[in-house]
């Protein structure tokens, strides 16, 4: 497919807008981010999009490519558009600001609402001795690599249906905090994940796990939170 031209449609505008059509030269080694950059450099200097590292570390270049949320920098055109046709839109489930950039406030506020790391140790205390093989730490390790790219949030149908739903990334974060032995009030973390719109809203479709570019399973973490809520209720009464 190196020879020839790609037919590229890119969303222009905010929530109201239309697709722009561009003919971009096909190249042997070409990511979707390369295509977007080429369109901006050659045809549309006003095209708005986000990217930073270009190598799958920062998580800022996620977009909807032919209907699927992906990191554009780690998506080769050959893999997703063998016929040479690309439709590129901003991520779903967030307000569109301009072209390919969306407003991530709601996503990040939900992330923050499950709590931040607050330990009980002070500077004077020795570093916490965490056994890497302990079951709780294994749960954290399996979920800790999230870089907030919002691909899971865009992939989740439940977020689309219920705007109150915290979404996979925030609940995955809650799961890592809940299993972190250094967190001072793990019960409070659990309770924040049980708020209306919390873990019990999840349908376990697994779209987040299917689409996570890092290969995490928020679905498993959310199931863990549901399990923890049952145990907490049977043991201690409240949730």
């Amino acid at each position, binding site marked *: 497919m190196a020879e020839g031209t790609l037919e590229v449609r890119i969303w222009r505008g905010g929530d109201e807008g239309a697709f722009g059509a561009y003919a971009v030269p096909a190249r042997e080694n070409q990511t979707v981010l390369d295509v977007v950059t080429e369109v901006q450099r050659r045809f549309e200097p006003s095209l708005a999009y986000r990217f930073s590292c270009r190598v799958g570390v920062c998580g800022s270049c996620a977009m909807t490519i032919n209907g699927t949320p992906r990191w554009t920098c780690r998506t080769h055109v050959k893999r997703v558009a063998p016929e040479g046709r690309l439709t590129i839109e901003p991520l779903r489930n967030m307000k569109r600001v301009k072209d390919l950039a969306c407003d991530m406030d709601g996503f990040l506020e939900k992330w923050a609402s499950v709590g931040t790391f607050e330990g009980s140790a002070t500077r004077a205390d020795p570093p916490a001795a965490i056994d890497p093989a302990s079951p709780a730490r294994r749960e954290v390790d399996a979920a800790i690599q999230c870089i907030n790219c919002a691909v899971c949030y865009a992939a989740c149908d*439940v977020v689309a*249906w*219920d705007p*109150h739903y915290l979404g996979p990334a925030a609940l995955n974060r809650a799961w890592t905090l809940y299993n972190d032995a250094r967190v001072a009030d793990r019960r409070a973390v659990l309770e924040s994940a*049980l*708020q*209306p719109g*919390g873990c*019990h*809203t999840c349908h376990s479709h697994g779209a987040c796990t299917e689409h996570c570019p890092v290969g995490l399973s928020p679905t498993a973490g959310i199931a863990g939170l*549901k399990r923890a*809520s*049952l145990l*907490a*209720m049977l043991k201690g009464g409240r*949730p």
Partner: protein
Amino acid sequence: MSEARLFFLQRLTALVMAPLVLVHLVLIVYAVQGGLTAAEILGRTQGSVLWGLFYGTFVLMAAIHAPIGLRNVLREWTGIGRRPIDWLMVAFGLVLLGLGWRAVAAVVGGGA
């Protein structure tokens, strides 16, 4: 009631209902295949404490289980507010309970 409690209740009622549904289905197939008439069926159920308990429990479980699920559906698919949905579902559960128990009373009560 908290989301966690509703989640627990929905699972618990499903757990109880699973065997009840199976018995109910087998019963339907048996009654249809054997060619039992309504009078014959009523003859066996009227005055039966066991069938009264069986279907009474079934109705109670369904009246708890269904509104919790329907609540989620309404939240996701309609623009109705959360509080109104909660009250609607309490009413829906009570209607299910009322209609269901009335039917159980009709099948089990009288006769014998």
